[in-house]
């Protein structure tokens, strides 16, 4: 797993991901009610966790 705030560019991508994540939850809960929002929250959180954990981390320094 890589640190999402390791650089400005990484923090910018993290911000875009946050917009999509919370936007989806807000739209679902507004359009479909509380439980639709909860369902999107659970699915989006699982997707984000799997993606973060599968992303290769930074290599340790050699020597």
């Amino acid at each position, binding site marked *: 797993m890589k*640190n999402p*705030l*390791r*650089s*400005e*560019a990484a*923090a*910018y991508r*993290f*911000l875009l991901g*946050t*917009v999509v994540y*919370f936007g989806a*939850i*807000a739209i679902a*809960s*507004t359009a479909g009610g509380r439980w639709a*929002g909860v369902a999107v929250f659970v699915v989006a959180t699982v997707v984000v966790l799997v993606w973060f954990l599968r992303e290769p981390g*930074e290599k*340790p*320094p050699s020597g």
Partner: protein
Amino acid sequence: MSVHAEAHEHHGPPAAHASSRVDSRILGMLMFIGSEIMLFGSFFTAYFFVRVVNNPPHWPPVGYHLPVFVAGVNTLILVTSSFTMHWALSSIKKGNRAGLQAGLVLTFLMGFTFLFTQITEYARIGFAPHDNAFTTIFFCLTGLHGAHVFVGLTLLMVATVRAFRGHYTAEQHYGVELPGIYWHFVDVMWIVVYTTVYLI
């Protein structure tokens, strides 16, 4: 140049030994942001305690209305300011100083607009922090974030002045990189605050 001459060329203390894989300046900012996340976490804990554990019959309480639309426009302004921040840094990485200066000025102006609008809304919102638990936690969470925007604006102002003085190059731009990381963090926290407090 001889080794002896090289030794006399160097001024100041020797470079610090760094065992971390992360640059010490980035590491300092990351630790600072870590402490900020814990601070916001404690405020969100108080918010959810008031909202979920106390389980009031209505949320917000009857008679209280939040300026969702104005805060939404403010959210758009703040997210857009992150785009210009990223543009500023991308510009200086290519050696484009004009792009850096324009990006930083735009980012500062949008951040200032956000803060000014928030203060104006506080004056017009129609309730005070001491009214009840809802109003207290509302002002605490949004005010905490506003304080972070103020800190971010201070960092941006320093970076902007330095940009106009020509302090940054395509190779040396940590003075923009670090405020950029902080600014994106402040934006991320606002999206969490806005979604939690205003939308759901």
